[in-house]
């Protein structure tokens, strides 16, 4: 794609005024309530599928938290993604509620940076926490994480049968796709047209 590139200032202004300032993450109880509205006895296979989606969600939340803690993002980049951490955590809360309702195994966050990096490697995600060389590394890692999150949801949706679980995972998948687009746009050399170039978004799986 050879789209006309945004002036950097314009893009930052857009992100600062739009993605950042008004981002209002759902509160955990509200999301949990949304996750608990399903049938009382979901099929057993749903538990395993939801657990796999949860395992990716806890990794994504952990990565966001540590990317921010490493301080490699510029102020405007960080502000552009500020609400995303809360939204990743909200996914974890909602999925835990759904997994619990389905009788599945609750997954906790990685126990250490090394454990998180092993999980990233296992999933084929490039970039390692604690070794990020700058903002580009960090943003590349976040894009890869979002794509894996999308992919985990997509794979689950091919087999989930419980109505509430299907809706929840689809909503999380769509939100991860939005994160991917915005994080992509934050990268310095990419244009608005390049932020969402794919007609059918299914992530990495």
């Amino acid at each position, binding site marked *: *794609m050879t*789209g*006309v590139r*945004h002036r950097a200032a314009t893009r930052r202004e*857009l*992100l600062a*005024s*739009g*993605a950042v300032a*008004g*981002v*209002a*993450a*759902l509160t955990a109880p509200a*999301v949990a309530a949304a996750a608990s509205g*399903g*049938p009382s006895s*979901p*099929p057993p296979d749903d538990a395993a599928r939801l657990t796999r989606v949860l395992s990716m969600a806890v990794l994504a939340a952990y990565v966001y938290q540590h990317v921010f803690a490493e301080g490699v993002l510029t102020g405007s980049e960080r502000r552009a993604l500020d*609400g995303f951490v*809360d*939204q990743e955590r*909200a*996914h974890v809360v*909602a999925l835990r509620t759904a997994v619990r309702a389905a009788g599945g195994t609750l997954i906790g966050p990685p126990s250490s940076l090394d454990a998180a990096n092993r999980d990233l490697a296992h999933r084929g995600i490039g970039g390692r926490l604690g070794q990020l060389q700058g903002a580009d590394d960090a943003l590349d890692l976040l894009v890869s994480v979002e794509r894996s999150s999308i992919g985990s*949801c*997509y794979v689950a*949706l*091919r*087999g989930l*049968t*419980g*109505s*509430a679980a*299907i*809706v*929840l995972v*689809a*909503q*999380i*998948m*769509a*939100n*991860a*796709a*939005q*994160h*991917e687009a*915005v994080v992509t*746009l934050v990268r310095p050399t990419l*244009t*608005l*047209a390049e*932020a*969402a*170039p794919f*007609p*059918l*978004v*299914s992530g990495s799986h």
Partner: protein
Amino acid sequence: MVKQAGDGRSRRALLGGAVAAAGTVVLAGCGGSSGAAGTDSTTGTSPSADASPRDVELLTAALELERRTVDAYVACIPLLSKTNVKAAVVWLSAEIQHTGELIALIRQAGGKAAPRANSYELGRMPSNQAQALALLASLEQLQISYYVRIISHVQLASARAAVSTILATDAQHIALLRLVQGKPAVPSALVA
């Protein structure tokens, strides 16, 4: 290509009414909120193996929404700035591909897609970029709302997964449309 609203109602009211009506009619036959449970088909591509009249109904309504959005992009692109035109052309291409995907899914479910209408009702036509962006965002939102409403009612697992990829793409479009409108791009953890 584009019809004007003739009765003075707002575009939002017209569009909202249309999607609500479509959703109500289609979902009326779905029989409750746990419709997908126990009715999955996870494999197969032949219409005879995966026939699902209910999916045909759900996907046919989705196809009409996508076709209307295609018309809206065509009508709105001339009103956009050069940078936004580049993006809108990419998104228009995606919407066109969504119609092709839905036609294939309808066929897989044992149905046949209706021919494309000559024109689709878009309400009052935008006359500047701000109105054009608002119209496109409203149509993307209608599609997203519809897909979230129907996805658990889609019986064929392969079709459900395909619908989720369309939903995710439309979610990206609306996030970026919000950005260029100066609004929060991703206001909620759960897209609805």
